[in-house]
Structure formats: structure tokens, C-alpha cells
């Protein structure tokens, strides 16, 4: 006899009524709080990249620029070499898994100009590939290897994508939301 709530196993307690689901609080978006330097940078970027398909927006207190995947290295190089932008410091390169897509974030900072910006690009969830930016900032090397390890993003043109944080032969990409949490085999 199948064990269903209607047919509890012999000796077992009868199934309890399902408790009413708690109402989740309403989710609000964080307010935008761009300072004067950010507003200035935002208009500067919109003016400079008229020939590219870029989408200039705001993330709380930071200017965000959404770009097409294949234009990432070209735009990054322009961000670094354009004297009025001069983004010489790649603060962080991170991948976020939104299940239906991946998002790659390049957090930039400029030491001479003292402004900050984030470049974003969307990747497909299946077989994500993005051109490398190691030619623009050498610090991208390990960040990209980490992204390859944990999220399976393939950085085309990267000099060496061997495992960095994981061991050789590790299967799967533990950063992804689909990777099980506390479910692992003892070895």
C-alpha cells in the first residue's frame, strides 16, 4: 500500500493538517542614493559610449553599465584607457547565479579620478562563455579562475583555467544555486 497522507503506514500517526502558509512580507527595492560624483559619472558614461549598446543605470549608490557579452573586453579596455574615466583598478569580478541566467559583475575604481562603477553582463545559464579581461587588468586572472571553478563560466582566451580553489578532478560547480548545500559524500 503506498504511503500517502490518506493511508498512513500502520502504527504511524495520522497525517497532520498542512499549516496555513505564512504570508511573506512585501519585498521592497532599495532606494537609489547616487551622490553628485555618481550623477556626473553617469552622464559622462552615457555621453562617451553613444556608439555602443550600453544601458546606464543605478545600483543603490553605484553607477551600473549593462553591456553586451561579446563587447565586455573592448568596453573594459576603453574604461581603463579613456583619460576622463581612467578605471585602473578592478576591485572585484563576481558571478551571480539567477538560475535562469548568470550575471557577471566587474566592480571598477579609478585611483586618479576617485570614482567607481560596475559593469554588468548577462550570461546564459547553459554553457556560459565570456571573453577574458586578463589583457586589461592582470588581477582578473585569479578572479576568472575562481568564476570558472565555482560557476562553470568559460572565460575565452584566459591563459590558464586550471582549478584554483577546488582540487583537480572536482565535479560540478559549487557556487551555482543548483548545487546541493549540505549534501555531500564522505570520502
Amino acid at each position, binding site marked *: 500500500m503506498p504511503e500517502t497522507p490518506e493511508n498512513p503506514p500502520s502504527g504511524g500517526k495520522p497525517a497532520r493538517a498542512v499549516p496555513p502558509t505564512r504570508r511573506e512580507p512585501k519585498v521592497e527595492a532599495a532606494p537609489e542614493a547616487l551622490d553628485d560624483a555618481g550623477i556626473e559619472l553617469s552622464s559622462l558614461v552615457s555621453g562617451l559610449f553613444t556608439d555602443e549598446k550600453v544601458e546606464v543605470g543605478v545600483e543603490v549608490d553605484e553607477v551600473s553599465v549593462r553591456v553586451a557579452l561579446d563587447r565586455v573586453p573592448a568596453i573594459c579596455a576603453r574604461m581603463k584607457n579613456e583619460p576622463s574615466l581612467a578605471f585602473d*583598478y578592478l576591485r572585484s569580478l563576481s558571478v551571480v547565479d539567477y538560475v535562469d541566467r548568470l550575471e557577471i559583475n566587474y566592480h571598477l575604481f579609478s585611483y586618479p579620478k576617485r570614482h567607481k562603477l560596475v559593469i554588468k553582463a548577462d550570461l546564459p545559464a547553459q554553457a556560459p562563455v565570456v571573453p577574458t579581461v586578463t589583457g586589461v587588468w592582470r588581477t582578473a586572472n*585569479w578572479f576568472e579562475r575562481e568564476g570558472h571553478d565555482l560557476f562553470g563560466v568559460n572565460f575565452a582566451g584566459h591563459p590558464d583555467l586550471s582549478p584554483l580553489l577546488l582540487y583537480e578532478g572536482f565535479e560540478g560547480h*559549487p557556487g551555482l544555486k543548483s548545487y546541493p548545500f549540505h549534501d555531500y559524500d564522505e570520502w
Partner: protein
Amino acid sequence: MPSVSAIMKITQTTRAADSSVDMMINMGPQHPSTHGVFRLVLQLEGERIVHAEPHIGYLHRGSEKLCEGESYAQVITLFDRMDYVANLNSELGFCMAVEKLMGIEVPDRAWYIRTILCELNRVASHMLFYGVFGMDAGAMTPILYGFREREKIQSLFESVTGARMMHNYFRIGGVKEELPADFPARLAGIVDELKRAVEECDRLLTGNEAFLARTRGISPLSAEDAIDFGVTGPILRSTGQIEDVRVSEPYGIYNRFDFGIPVGSTGDCWDRYYIRIEEMRQSLSIIEQAAGQMETGEIQAKMRRIARPPKGEVYVRSETPRGDLGVFLVSDGGPKPYRVKVRTPSFSNLQAIQHMLRGAYVADAVVVLGSLDIILGEVDR
């Protein structure tokens, strides 16, 4: 039986062949000078290093992924375990990220407590560096002095937070509890002792002839290379770049204090060392100013018990003893973070070692690694 001259000839040819063959030296993962579990494979030509390949990940615990399964208040304990020598500085990075996303105003007194403890933690971390770096360079005494002073700070932390390490003392919007009643008196005593100790340490090692020979002019780093490699903190400042997040993007109450940013000129190992000695003096000055300005008041902002930041993402920087700690926090409006990416200073600083060791003598590899002051818990996360 071959003649003597034939044997001579054979040895000569093998010698010639040997000198063109690269030698591989494996350093670590279990090696006393690797400051944790870290492996460095050196390819040599004679005594010169032609290629150094760092291998990390031995301490990878998946902290970033674990953050996604904990509530915001619980995540702080995971940050304790990243930079396990400057725990409080790590905790502060995450708390600030959540506070920025939620728009929380942290009360003044909480900020003073945080600042005093973070600066004390910076001194403790640099004291550890002082001792260990001395040992890397072949001096046995500094570790005893460094650890003795660090111990005083640890015992003060114990009286405040209940733990010598892994404090879990900072909270989103403030700190866990009020300071003990004897804290101001103990702090004043410890600051006085530390001031004397820094001078003592400085006299003991800085000008030592053998120490200078091991560190002066060893693998200098230029400011351009440092920025390109994402090197931050004392190592970036040693190249002459004036950059400190506490001053350039002031957070908390750092704009209320008067302190200097020590910078070097050549970016060699000695500069990297001396920047940290000077930073200890500046930190002690900040602590004294903060203790003088501190007033009674609230230590926790008014907020809901369970933090639920709005949907959005923030990137927050703070200056830890090792450099620029960046926390990238993505929230979907739920009770747990959607994604936490921690840009740790040691990770990027260590990456530059490949560049710094190219062409250096193999005997200097340990000193160069020591001068970076990496914490593997932070590198591997």
C-alpha cells in the same frame, strides 16, 4: 676501465647539461614559512627563480556559498573565520554592507567601540606580522616580542567579547553589548604599553644589519604593477601610492580623527615591513583620540530583530590590516543573503607573488612571501 681524462670529460658534459636543466622546488603545502596551507612551486635556473606557480585552495570552505544558507545575523560568524587574525575588521565589512543596504544609522557610541576594537585588531595583526616576518628573515627574537604584545590585546578582547578570536561581537546596526566597566582604564594602560612596545620592536629589528641585508631592495614593486594586480593595503602604500580607504572613502567616524597614511618609496620588502610599524603608531593615535571623544549612549540602532534588507545590491569597501576588503552583497528581499562575494585583500595581494618572484633569488622567496602578510583563511575562503 675509462681513463681519468675520460671521466673528467663525462663530468664536464653532465655539468653543462645540468645548468640548462631547470630545477623544480616544491614549497609547501606543509612548510613552516607558508603561513598556513599554501604551496609554491619554484622553477629555478641556478639560484634565480624563473617561474613561481602558487597553488591555493587548501583551506577552501565555501564561505560565500555558506552565507547563502544563513540568516544575516549568522553570516557574521563566517566572516570571523575569513581573516582569522583580524576578525573584527572582517566582521565590520559585512555589517557595513547590510547597514548600507538597509539604510541603518549606527549610533555614535557603537561606532566608537567598533573603531577602537578594529584599530586594536590592526595593531594585533601587525604585531603578529612583525614577529613572523622577523622569523622569515632569520631573526628569532621578534616573535617573542610580537606575541607578548598581541597577547595583551587578545586578553582585552576576551574581556569585551568573551573570545580571544572568532569574537562575533559586531551586530548589524551596532555591537553586541556594552563594554565592561573597567574597559577605559585597561585600554589606557594597554595603549601606553603598546606605544612603548612599538618603539622597542622598532629599535630591535628595523636597523639591524642582517635584517637590512635580507630585506632592502628585495623584489621591489612599482605602483603601476601594484594597481594592475589589484594589490592594496600596506603593500600598495609601500610603492608610494597614497591610498587608504579610511581616508579616501571614509566610512564610520574615521573623518573625525587626525592621522597620517605612511607611504614608502621603493616598494621593497623593507618598505612593506616599515609601513606596518608606522601604521601601528597611527592606529594607537586613533585609539587615543577615539577614547577621548567617546560618550555614553546607545550601542544598537533601532531595527527589527531579524534583518530583512530590501531587494538590491551594494559593494562596500573597508580597510583591513591587509588592505581593501570589498563585500558585494546581493539581496532578494528575503531573510538570507542571495549572494555574498568577498573580495579579500590577501587573495589579490598573493596573486602578485608570481610577478614579484620572477628573477629573484630562491633564498628570498620566503622573505617576499612573508612581506605580503597573507592569511590563507582569507585567500581560500
